[in-house]
């Protein structure tokens, strides 16, 4: 199975464990990914709020590059919900709206590009893994079944909704990731919040709103008896993991529910070492939960700082050009 691949900014950095674990498993599940050369940011939900046609053209450049570069596939996949939806939305709306199709292509022409809507099939990574590669093929590769691990499959919003091409069994209670986790030997818990919102960008612009949504999800997963939440999106992971720590401070609670990517659990079940899967980079340590399946997990670094931060401890500024990594 081959697909064009849009990694997106998050996967390059904050969601690196998602990308690393995907790279680690893709050979085993017979997935070949051709990265779009010189892709640009898709604009998340922000660009769309400021310049409409430009937002579609921004995404249009990625679609045009993918169409132009693709060899032997008409699939285009992304692992981030926002990236996936932006690609799917621009393609769907260009198909539906001839005027938009014309305008976007007029803009693309200024850069010597063109995109024929419908030429690529835009699919989220989970969709390809579950529905194209399939549960049986994956189960056949499992060498370390995740027996005893209780997981809350969390889909978030933008993969299963609005679902332009009807890829999912439900917009509110989908089961694909649950079945995948079952194929890995884990036990998915039944919980009602699997497609409730994690707050998206509100964690940055209006943290109080986001903290409430995050608490509800984390609490729900714990009540359902889950050892961890499993996610398919860098933004969801960031909100539920990193902001879980902040949320605890805000509400004076002490939730410790780790949040991993489905690709990381696939890697464990396929026998990959935890380190290769980026396990240990999460804020809420997954090691205690993973001990249940005896996967050696490097301990996540302690998040608590001993001393109070001084002013000089502020975030490094973008001007620090000398410190390339």
């Amino acid at each position, binding site marked *: 199975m081959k697909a064009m691949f849009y990694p997106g900014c998050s996967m*390059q950095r904050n969601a690196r464990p998602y990308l690393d674990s995907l790279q680690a498993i893709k050979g085993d599940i017979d997935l070949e990914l051709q990265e779009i050369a010189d892709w640009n940011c898709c604009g998340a939900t922000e660009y769309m*709020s400021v310049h409409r046609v430009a937002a579609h053209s921004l995404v249009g450049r990625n679609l045009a590059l993918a169409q132009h570069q693709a060899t032997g596939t008409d699939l285009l996949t992304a692992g981030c919900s926002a990236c996936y939806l932006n690609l799917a939305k621009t393609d769907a*709306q260009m198909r539906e*709206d001839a005027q938009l199709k014309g305008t976007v292509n007029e803009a693309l022409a*200024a850069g010597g590009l063109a995109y024929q809507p419908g030429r690529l099939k835009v699919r989220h990574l989970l969709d390809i893994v579950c529905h194209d590669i399939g549960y049986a093929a994956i189960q056949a590769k499992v060498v370390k079944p995740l027996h005893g691990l209780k997981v809350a499959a969390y889909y978030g919003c933008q993969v299963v909704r609005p679902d332009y091409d009807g890829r999912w069994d439900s917009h509110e209670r989908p089961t694909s990731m649950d079945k995948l986790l079952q194929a890995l030997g884990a036990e998915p818990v039944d919980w009602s919040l699997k497609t409730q919102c994690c707050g998206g*960008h509100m964690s940055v612009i209006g943290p109080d709103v986001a903290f409430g949504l995050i608490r509800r999800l984390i609490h729900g997963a714990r009540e359902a008896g889950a050892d961890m939440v499993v996610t398919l999106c860098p933004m969801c992971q960031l909100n539920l993991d990193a902001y879980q*720590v902040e949320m605890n401070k805000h509400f004076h609670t002490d939730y410790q529910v780790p949040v991993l990517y489905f690709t990381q659990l696939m890697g464990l079940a396929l026998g990959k070492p935890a380190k290769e899967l980026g396990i240990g980079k999460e804020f809420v340590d997954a090691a205690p939960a993973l001990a249940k399946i005896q996967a050696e997990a490097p301990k996540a670094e302690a998040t608590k700082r001993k001393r109070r931060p001084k002013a000089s*401890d502020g975030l490094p500024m*973008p001007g620090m050009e000398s410190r390339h990594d």
Partner: protein
Amino acid sequence: MISAPVSTSPHGPGQFLAEVMAATPGDNRLNLCVQCGSCGGSCPSGPEMEHTPRRLFALIRAGERDTVLKSNAPWYCVSCYYCTVRCPQDIHITDVMYTLKSMAIKAGLFHDAALPGFSETFVDYVEKYGRSFELGLATRFNLRHHPLSLAGMAPMGLAMLKRGRIDLTPHRIDGMAQLSAILEKAKALEAAP
């Protein structure tokens, strides 16, 4: 309450509605709202919004341009698409929220500068580098809008750095000139009537 589709002629009370519909790509069906309230009832941000989507759409229909564009509602929309999949009339509610945000920015009407500020900071980065830059984004956004929260965010920023989960410098794509030409053209086309 069932009401008939409103006329979307460029004159009269339907004018603002026509304008919002024209600025929303696709078959958005906003004129077919039956005011059933399913959208507001599904919205995770409902309690923080000054107007639920249903009320906002009634105001659009009534031509209450200023009230609509000043409302915090579109800015509290997290694009969860619950309303959109539940709307019995298949109205592209989330897309309309995007339209209202860009109209509010254009008209200079929004009620808290922090809300569009995040979007604009993000856009600045994309236009300069072709990639977003999480660290610069959070820092610049917070410097401009919540200088006091920077100290509070430092431990999280450092924890991110330790885990190699954040960049210190943005990455610039090779085709920056091409991307700029595309975006410039797109904006010119968007501005043209």
